[in-house]
């Protein structure tokens, strides 16, 4: 067995193993969230996933970038068929294992080449949008530092991988034309064929070295990229599917009714309840009302955070953000993910019950951001992967009001009015029908 086959097998094993380990950590982190039943209506959920995740229906709200994104997505998925050949070639020591398919092979590789070129062009346009045109939503305060670098790294990597794939075929064609050993005659392909003779001056040995170099660069690049995913917003390419599948299916305006509150309120309304009875012994830790930290959110809200790819469509349509307020729904989910990562690392280091004294509310998200939300659902409507930043905002507000009694003075007055006279303003309930006699 030759050394490059062994090296290749080790590369695959190590990168798949590492990837699996990091994915397991993410799943563990998501499961730090509270239970939530989203197992109903599987048929409807599959349809939604087909439409929104596979069909990218919500991306098409902005058609130009929607189509470019679809090209990158379709290109990525389809070109992966070629990766299968590359992996088998690497493991078996063959070259162009699928070439006996004849004209079908030429057709397939030509298709991959066309897609690769389209992906390359799209990624270049995306880089221009981010760095030269400088779209407003990519310049928000939360988009400095790592998020900005992350986005550029993803795009540059894709450009490099596609270039390597195309260039490899150009060199391969040159090797075929000089009749080099091992280089199966497969004829020219759609894109690389256009660059015929580009490397005609090079000797056979340098061509082979060049081709092998590109081959290794391409496949190592793919496995490196795979292992980059768990550290990147680009993880959305995997999570988008389950995330849309487990979307909220009820009307957008419907907020959850908190079960813990329901039990207490029902007791208060129960005419048979004994007001002097000793409260039942609490079982386990008392439940926190609302969310202070990531563990108080549901697993779905945490999955939202890992699925967010920071496109900023939510922030772009947020009335609070548009009018210069502190709130950015994108930041709410980015903060949730960053805090969850921090909590996860703490657990890895110091065990499950580790408390670092920090929390999502306060250390990451400020009251002022939460108070700016109009609950208008523009963010949830705009999100291409059906994330629900509004639910996180509401849960944090619940903690502020119910656990800390923190509310702007005007809200305290409004709440007192509702409690005392059944209206947010100070009008007597007895006057509720007065409108009838006024004109």
């Amino acid at each position, binding site marked *: 067995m030759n050394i490059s086959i062994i090296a290749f097998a080790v590369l695959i094993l190590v990168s798949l193993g590492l990837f699996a380990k990091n994915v397991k950590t993410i799943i563990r982190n998501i499961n730090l969230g509270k239970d939530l039943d989203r197992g109903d209506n599987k048929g409807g959920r599959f349809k939604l996933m087909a439409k929104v995740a596979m069909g990218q229906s919500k991306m098409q*709200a902005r058609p130009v970038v929607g189509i470019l994104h679809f090209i990158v997505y379709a290109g990525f998925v389809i070109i992966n068929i070629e990766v299968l050949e590359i992996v088998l070639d690497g493991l078996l020591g063959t070259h162009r294992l699928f070439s006996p398919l004849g004209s079908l092979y030429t057709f397939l590789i030509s298709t991959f080449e066309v897609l690769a070129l389209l992906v390359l062009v799209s990624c270049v346009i995306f880089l221009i949008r981010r760095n030269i045109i400088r779209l407003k939503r990519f310049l928000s305060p939360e988009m400095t530092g790592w998020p900005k670098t992350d986005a550029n790294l993803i795009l540059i990597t894709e450009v490099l991988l596609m270039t390597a794939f195309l260039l490899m075929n150009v060199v391969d064609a040159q090797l075929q034309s000089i009749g080099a050993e091992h280089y199966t005659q497969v004829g020219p392909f759609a894109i690389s064929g256009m660059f015929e003779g580009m490397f005609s001056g090079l000797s056979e040995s340098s061509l082979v070295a060049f081709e092998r170099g590109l081959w290794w660069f391409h496949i190592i690049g793919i496995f490196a990229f795979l292992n980059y995913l768990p550290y990147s917003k680009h993880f959305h390419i995997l999570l988008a599917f389950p995330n849309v599948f487990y979307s909220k299916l009820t*009307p*957008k305006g*419907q*907020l959850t*009714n*908190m079960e813990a*509150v*329901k039990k*207490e*309120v*029902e007791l*208060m*309304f129960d005419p048979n309840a004994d007001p002097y009875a000793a409260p039942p012994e609490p079982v386990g830790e008392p439940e926190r009302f*609302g969310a202070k930290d990531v563990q108080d959110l549901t697993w779905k809200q945490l999955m939202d955070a890992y699925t967010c790819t920071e496109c900023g469509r939510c922030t772009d*349509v947020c*009335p*609070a953000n*548009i*009018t*210069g*307020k*502190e*709130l950015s729904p994108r930041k709410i989910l980015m903060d949730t993910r960053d805090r969850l990562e921090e909590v996860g690392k703490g657990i890895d280091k110091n065990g499950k019950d580790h408390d670092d004294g920090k929390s999502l509310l306060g250390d990451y998200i400020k009251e*002022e951001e939460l108070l*700016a*939300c*109009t*609950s*208008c*659902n*523009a963010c949830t*409507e705009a999100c291409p992967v059906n994330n629900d930043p509004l639910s996180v905002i509401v849960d944090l*507000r*619940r903690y*502020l*009001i*119910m656990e800390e009694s923190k*509310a702007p003075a*005007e*809200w305290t*007055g*409004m*709440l007192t009015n*509702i*409690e005392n006279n*059944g*209206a*947010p*303003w100070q*009008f007597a309930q*007895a*006057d*509720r*029908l*007065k*409108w*009838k006699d*006024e*004109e």
Partner: protein
Amino acid sequence: MSELKVPTMAEMMASGQQPDVLFWVGCAGSFDDRAKKITRAFVKILNKAGINFAVLGTEESCTGDPAKRAGNEFLFQMQAMGNIQVLNAYEIKKIVTTCPHCFNTLKNEYPELGGDYQVKHHSQFLQELINEGKLTVEGGTFKGKKITFHDPCYLGRANDVYEAPRELVEKLDAELVEMKRCKSKGLCCGAGGAQMFKEAEKGDKEVNIERTEEAMETKPDIIATGCPFCMTMMTDGVKIKEKETEVKVYDLAEMIAEANDL
């Protein structure tokens, strides 16, 4: 001034009657001076169409929507349970309301707490009356007027009601002009999520100004809406822009009533 016929549930019950539908007036519709006009306009239409309806009157209480959106789930559920007791005691099956916030809460958040009703926004209710022939509308004063409809978030995005209000505008023989951001992309007026009851957070613009400017771009004669809070925000916006003589803000019910000389 014609006398409004507004039976209460208590009166109905005392005389052994049951209404076909309960009109949920809401806090704004009961107490806010501008919104009370919407309430009266809607009742005039109900009277004219001969609808057998009733109101809860002094037995109605806030649905709890602003408390819930502010984060006070306790107060919300207290309000909800109290209202549900009253509604269930009167065996209410159908509810119509002129407030999208009440509409959303009654329709979506009450069922789990034991209050299951068929709830309609008044735009849907009016559209049905027209379709059933119980109400006829001719353009009258609104004929040929340019009207832009501001989608209330809790009617549109929250509950996917986009067409009923627009069909009403078209029934008035008016020219419906859409804003740049409309329907599912409509921009909030700035009042939702209990913002109505506090000063806006620090920023560089008020949301209602942004929205009013957008409405103005359509050069409308009338900004129509279907929510008492949007009404306040848009009316304020028009005033701040000093356009109140050229541009009027009306609720759908007010326009239908006026077109019927009510």
